[in-house]
């Protein structure tokens, strides 16, 4: 029997890739190897409804029955420590050796660590279900939670903690929250919602000292020279891709495992996709990016699976991301920093979309925020316009009574 397809990382991307192999009609062996002990699950609820709810239910991507039916050989609690590209084998932590014909690396990313917090037990990070359980257990009513980092994970956790009755302080060293990739107008709406909920957001701060009480796990911080005491300190300052097994085996790494537009690495038998991979974004002239986004992980997993079956398909998707905080939902299609001018469209009384246009008038991104799913439909239509390289007239984009669907037909 041939060794078949092996996928390392049983997260969003790896799980979707295994299912896609079967959907494409591949009949040989498929092995999915994951370091975590859980069945593949969705991460987004961990910082949102999951964290705010009474218990963190695991949102499983594919349960054991579905994986069995698809004849996926699932190996959990198994970490791949080495790739031998000449022998086409993997080594597991326990010493076991697994051969492969084609390999997909879907190893994801891990939280970036704060050097100052090393060795301080009271400081926690969020990436996995187990991390979320540990945090959730400490969100007691009236506890003071300090969150370092005003990015999505920090802010979503701030919303969840405040909904659970905690007092929350968000500490951001940048001049505003969500500096990376989110327009200030949208960040302002999010900051106001936190303000209404009693969350204190402090931007442009410098944190000079951090100590912990080992018995209570309380953390004491010195922020701009003044002391802050926190019952729990959560660090959310970004993520770093899990590239070590790739680079150790000599694969090219460039802010993520380097792949081409087909998700192939520098070794034609090895593919990489999802949060761990950097790839050329065709819609922006091949600009190399690494995305940390849920739909991207799914799409790239499925694309890599098709190309492991030699379909030779190119990546063409538009990046897409969402975040939920309180009753607000934000969605962004495309990369905002590709735009040079902005057109604003009101969606009802309390929602809006910003269209980001390149110098030549091409629509390159759209970002929006509002209660519930107020902006979803228009962001989706904008995404289709972006994918086509459309140059929609600014006055039409701004006019709330012009249906975006009509611009698609143009």
């Amino acid at each position: 029997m041939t060794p078949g397809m092996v996928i390392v990382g049983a997260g969003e991307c790896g799980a979707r890739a295994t299912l896609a192999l079967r959907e494409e009609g591949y009949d040989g062996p498929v092995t999915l190897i994951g370091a975590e002990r859980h069945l593949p699950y969705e991460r987004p609820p961990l910082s949102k409804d999951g964290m705010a709810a009474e218990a963190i239910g695991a949102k499983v991507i594919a349960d054991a029955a579905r994986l069995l039916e698809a004849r996926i050989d699932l190996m959990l609690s198994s970490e791949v420590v080495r790739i031998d590209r000449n022998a086409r084998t993997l080594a597991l932590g326990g010493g076991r050796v697994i051969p492969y014909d084609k390999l997909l690396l879907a190893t994801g990313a891990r939280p970036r660590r704060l050097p100052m917090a090393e060795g301080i037990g009271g400081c926690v990070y969020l990436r996995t279900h187990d991390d979320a359980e540990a945090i959730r257990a400490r969100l007691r009513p009236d506890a003071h939670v300090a969150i370092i980092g005003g990015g999505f994970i920090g802010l979503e956790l701030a919303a969840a903690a405040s909904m659970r009755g905690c007092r929350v302080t968000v500490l951001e060293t940048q001049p505003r929250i969500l500096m990376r990739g989110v327009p200030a107008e949208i960040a302002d709406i999010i900051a106001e919602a936190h303000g209404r909920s009693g969350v204190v957001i402090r931007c442009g701060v410098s944190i000079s000292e951090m100590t912990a009480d080992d018995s209570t796990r309380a953390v004491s911080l010195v922020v701009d020279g003044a002391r802050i005491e926190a019952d729990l300190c959560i660090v959310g300052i970004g993520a770093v891709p899990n590239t070590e097994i790739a680079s150790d085996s000599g694969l090219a790494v460039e802010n993520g495992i380097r792949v081409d537009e087909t998700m192939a690495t520098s070794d034609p038998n090895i593919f990489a996709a999802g949060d761990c991979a950097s790839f050329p974004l065709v819609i922006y002239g091949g600009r190399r990016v690494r995305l940390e986004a849920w739909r991207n992980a799914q799409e790239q997993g499925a694309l890599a699976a098709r190309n492991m079956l030699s379909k030779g398909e190119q990546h063409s998707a538009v990046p897409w991301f969402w975040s939920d905080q309180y009753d607000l939902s934000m969605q962004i299609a495309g990369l905002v920093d590709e735009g040079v001018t902005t057109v604003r469209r009101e969606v009802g009384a309390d929602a809006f979309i910003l269209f980001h246009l390149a110098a030549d008038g091409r629509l390159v991104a759209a970002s929006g925020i509002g209660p519930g799913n107020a902006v979803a439909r228009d962001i989706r239509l904008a995404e289709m316009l972006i994918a086509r390289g459309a140059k929609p007239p600014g006055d039409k984009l701004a006019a709330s009574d012009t249906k975006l669907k009509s611009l698609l037909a143009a």
Partner: protein
Amino acid sequence: MSEWIEACEVDDVDEEDVIRFDHAGKTFAIYRSPDDEFFATDGLCTHEKVHLADGLVMDDIIECPKHNGRFNYKTGAAKGAPVCVNLQTYPVKVESGKVLVQIG
């Protein structure tokens, strides 16, 4: 028992669009296809119970507004990640300008 319930007027739904219809504590989605036929499904996505009527209709697909899960609204079939559970569909008929749904 199943009965025909008046959901809306024909003109309440644009072509290739969807509206929400609530009845007896349940929520439904009423679709008008590009070829001017009417369809009805459960109103909530099978992924996270989001109102599909806020989503986008393209041909015979309804796309969920929350995470872009897709269903064929004519058959209820889930069309791939992240949705894997099909939508319940309901019979629909049009009588003197009104859209009727058989709920039972």
